[in-house]
């Protein structure tokens, strides 16, 4: 509708392909290709093997995958609870208080993850709350980092929620808590699951804060990928990266299934 002649269209598409393919498609293909290879000195990888995957799905690597999954699930759940609670509470506040609360919860996005990691390290390495060296320090850091995203997407959904529903419920005699459980939360469910998916994906790939905090017995998959590439095992690292992407996508797929079922109209 913007470009009418056939020739011009093809020209535009060519430019798109030249920009898009090398920048966005190539990196993923390269990682995928490398994960099946032992050698890459020419244009194409060589020495086909699946041994990286056999290694990536057992032992240390399997341990890291479960660590990542547990961390991401727990952190997302925590973040979703706190973020949703804050967003719901903010909706009932006066304008200025609401702005303040929203700003407070957006702040973790603007603060570098490495600094969040450092701050938590500084705060919880000494009594009264000694968490350094436990898995909880990693999980809490992830929760802090993704809470902002949960809060933002739930906030946006609350603004879109038609107040007519709550008012109809109230006029039928439902108290605020009943309205929250029976009307507002069910109506927000699609957005909540979307937020959960986002939090999960972010937590699965989190590296910066984790690098500052992880204890030896709580190595997440991104950390393992880094240590593999750092010692030069690029091909094994690629296989681990593919496992990470696949696991993330699988969980997102399940979440989107839940979302489709939960969305009305």
């Amino acid at each position, binding site marked *: 509708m913007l470009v009418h002649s056939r020739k011009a269209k093809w020209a535009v598409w060519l430019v798109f392909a030249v920009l898009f393919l090398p920048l966005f498609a190539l990196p993923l293909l390269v990682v995928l290709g490398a994960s099946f290879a032992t050698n890459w000195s020419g244009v194409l990888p060589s020495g086909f093997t699946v041994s990286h995957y056999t290694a990536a799905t057992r032992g240390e690597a399997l341990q890291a995958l479960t660590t990542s999954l547990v961390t991401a699930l727990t952190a997302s759940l925590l973040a979703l609870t706190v973020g949703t609670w804050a967003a719901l509470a903010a909706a009932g506040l006066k304008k200025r208080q609401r702005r303040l609360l929203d700003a407070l919860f957006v702040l973790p996005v603007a603060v570098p993850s490495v600094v969040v990691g450092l701050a938590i390290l500084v705060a919880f390495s000494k009594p009264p709350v000694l968490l350094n060296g436990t898995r909880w320090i990693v999980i809490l850091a992830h929760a802090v980092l993704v809470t902002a995203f949960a809060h933002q997407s739930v906030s946006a959904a609350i603004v879109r929620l038609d107040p*007519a529903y709550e008012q*109809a*419920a109230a006029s*039928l*005699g*439902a*108290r605020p808590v009943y309205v929250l459980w029976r009307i507002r939360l069910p109506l927000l469910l699609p957005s909540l699951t979307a937020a959960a998916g986002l939090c999960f994906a972010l937590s699965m790939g989190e590296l910066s804060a984790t690098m500052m905090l992880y204890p030896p017995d709580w190595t997440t998959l991104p950390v393992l990928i880094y240590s593999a590439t750092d010692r030069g095992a690029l091909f094994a690292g690629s296989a681990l990266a593919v496992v990470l992407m696949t696991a993330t996508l699988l969980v997102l797929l399940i979440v989107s299934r839940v979302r489709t079922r939960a969305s*009305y109209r």
Partner: protein
Amino acid sequence: MTDGIRFDSVTVAYDGNVVLDSLDLTVAPGEVMALLGPSGSGKTTALRAVAGFVRPASGRVFLGGRDVTDLPPYLRGVGMVVQQYALFPHLRVEDNVAFGLKARKVARGEIRTRVAEALEMVGMAEYGRRYPRELSGGQQQRVAIARALAIRPGVLLLDEPLSALDAQLRSGMLAELSRLHRELPEVSILYVTHDQVEALTLADRIAVMDRARLQECGTPRELYRAPKSEFTASFVGSANLLPVTVGERGVFFGERRVEVRGVVPGAATLCVRPHLVGLGAGPNQLAGVVREIQWRGATHRLYVDVDGHRVVADVPELKKPPVYGDAVMLHFAPEDAVLLSVGVGDE
């Protein structure tokens, strides 16, 4: 018996803007009161003050003789139906109707019978298992009414309930609402609308609102036959409003003396309904020139220029209608003309 709804000089303001100005109005038990007015007249605000969604800056609201001004909405026990129905999209029809009963912790068996009863009343008994999105607009409307009635409210608030329906469905639903009210004669209904046909058809009394104020309140017949202000005259039905002067020697429209029912001193506007204006010679004759003529099946509508004023006349279908530019004679009976005092409601 106590009142159904009573507004006691209720004023509502947002950010210093007065949107409802000291409303005094009483709706008797079992009465249907229409709040009629253009948008921004404060009629919806008045309804929301009864439901408890706006807090009056001053004044009190009473329901069944009880002061509810400080009660939250969920303790007021009023039924409410809004323009877009607000049916809960994630609940089946039967669960929508049961919602108010569950919130009140009514026993399960009781809920089942009352849901069935309410759906039966609006003719939706078959649709209990459906979701709102699977229903047409008219059906959603019926479910919304059933949901409001299931809690057996003493007061039913209807906020432009028919405006989302097309014209044909609307007249059907109007008849349906009348029937429902006959079946539930003890329920007071506050009906907010901008549509005079709905108000005239359904209401026992009409409260005409404009610019945050109650202009006039009376039975449809009173308001139609003897409006007290130009606003009411033109908003309830259509009206010819002619400027007149009232002196000791009588009422004059320009140079012409007109006979009218009862003379109000200071009045300066004459109101005659178009269908009460006749064609040809008669009492209160006005000579004019036809500017436009519309055929409307059973009637002809003439727009006639009388000394620079437009007079509309609805006359029975004419065999030989006049054409543009024809000189015609119009007349109206003295008892069909009402004098309005200028300035009533205008400040």
